């Protein structure tokens, strides 16, 4: 219960002039915002889907050009036996790439902060990998790497690891200078300084990078699948979209697309939740303002 509401409650029960018009207006505005926060997005989304449906019906657009939303859902259910294994494949590549990106990104960031020479030597490679579009690198990767799974994983990793590396490096370097002096005064070892000062300082930055990397890992996995094409063992969601495209099975393309989008949203929600729970006790970003 906020201070405002408490003031309101007291004002009502004791019937004293605790609440003025401004406070009432403020309280009402907060209530409206709390409801609108959930209702508005749902409303707008439903409305958009309804308009989509109306456009298809009114213009009598055939389902192989643009299916009705209902048909997309129907296809999702009907084709679940092919789409679900594909979802698992894409999800597996995404999560493995994200895991390797976390290990690689944090590992490299720690290495860079421990050794200036290592940073000077290797950071240009990290930047080059990052700025070169993955679609340009991917065909080469699939030439040299026999195993499709490893190739896909590598592509997704290249896309996902940089935000984690960049953010964690920044975080490790942004430890409070006085605290660093304090560590020197107390003769902390390099490991202690990393463990007790630099890693906790870097946590909010790392979590910010993780949120970006989660989405990028999915994008990397999907893009890599496209590049790998239908010739390989590919059976992820991107492969399903390609395959359905060749067969002009437009509803299934939409259904696969919907699954990819939902996967992205779920990944974002999970990383946001992790970030919130890790920081809620102390970091400005996770604190509620009074």
């Amino acid at each position, binding site marked *: 219960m906020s201070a405002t509401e408490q003031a309101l409650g007291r004002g009502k029960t004791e019937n004293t002039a605790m609440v003025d018009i401004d406070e009432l207006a403020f309280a009402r505005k907060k209530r409206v915002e709390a409801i609108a926060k959930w209702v508005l997005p749902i409303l707008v989304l439903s409305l958009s889907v309804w308009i989509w449906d109306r456009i298809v019906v009114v213009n009598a657009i055939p389902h192989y050009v643009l299916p009705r939303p209902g048909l997309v859902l129907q296809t999702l259910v009907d084709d679940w036996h092919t789409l679900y294994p594909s979802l698992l494949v894409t999800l597996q590549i995404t999560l493995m790439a994200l895991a390797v990106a976390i290990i690689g990104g944090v590992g490299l960031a720690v290495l860079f902060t421990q050794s200036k020479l290592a940073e000077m030597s290797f950071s240009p490679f990290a930047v080059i990998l990052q700025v070169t579009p993955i679609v340009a690198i991917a065909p080469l990767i699939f030439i040299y790497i026999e195993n499709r799974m490893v190739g896909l994983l590598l592509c997704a990793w290249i896309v996902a690891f940089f935000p984690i590396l960049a953010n964690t490096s920044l975080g490790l370097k942004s430890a*409070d200078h*006085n*605290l660093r*002096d*304090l*560590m*020197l*005064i*107390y*003769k*902390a070892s390099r490991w*202690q300084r990393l463990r*007790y*000062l630099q890693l*906790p300082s870097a*946590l909010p930055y790392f979590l910010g990078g993780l949120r970006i990397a989660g989405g990028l890992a999915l994008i990397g996995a999907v893009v890599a699948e496209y590049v790998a094409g239908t010739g390989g063992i590919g059976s992820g969601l991107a492969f399903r979209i390609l395959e359905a495209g060749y067969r002009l099975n437009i509803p299934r393309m939409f259904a696969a697309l919907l699954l990819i989008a939902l996967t992205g949203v779920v990944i974002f929600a999970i990383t946001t939740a992790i970030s919130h729970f890790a920081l809620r*006790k*102390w*970091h400005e970003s996770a*604190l509620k303002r009074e």
Partner: protein
Amino acid sequence: MTTQPRMILPAGQRAPVLSMQSVDKTFNGNVVALQRMSLTVNEGDFISLLGPSGCGKSTALRLIAGLMRPTLGRITWEGGQGADDLGVVFQEATLMPWTTVAKNVWLPFRLRGQSFAQVKDRIEEVLALVGLEKFANAYPRELSGGMKMRVSIARALVTNPRLILMDEPFAALDEITRQRLNDDLLNLKARTGATVIFVTHSVFESVFLSDRILVMAARPGRIIREIAVDAPYPRGIDWRTSPEYAQIARETSDTLMSTLAPEETH
């Protein structure tokens, strides 16, 4: 583990803790931050380094803290420097925001590999000393500026160090909080027998707190005069409003102003 407070002997009978002998610090080969600074710190001293900005008082503190090495001269600890000999309080409270007050105070012990359970009693004792025993499990962000500074002082005190360095610790606080912390600091000193070097640019603070004031001048940074404040501890409002206090403050202020005179003729 509890620690016995040290006895404070009268000035003149105190054993030396640390000495600086003709210490010079030059930056980039030509900026003289500190010139021929000599100082003997005795057990139980409350020394203020008072001076305008650029007089090298913070440089002196960093040298004593071992954060940098003197260009010339020597800094020696009587009997060598042990691991727990030094406590430091910075201008900001410098707490780790991600952990609780008690865990922050634990830091010096933690870095020696002592578990929280091992030193829990000592941490509670020192938190009680600064009046924060109820806030052991609070996070720093939940505390006011003055309370954060108390945590910082508790952290400096927790190892019962031979010397505590304070670098303008109360400069960022409001006047009312500052006076309370000044009172409390003297209380703490009386109860723990700590030896303190206190950097400040406030004449009144230095006269209120210290028994030795080292007035410093800038360009090059150096000590120009030592003023002894003989008034006995404990000191309180009576001392703050006494004629002797006003007189020493006047004298200190005049000395400080004399160091600024050349600059005004520029």
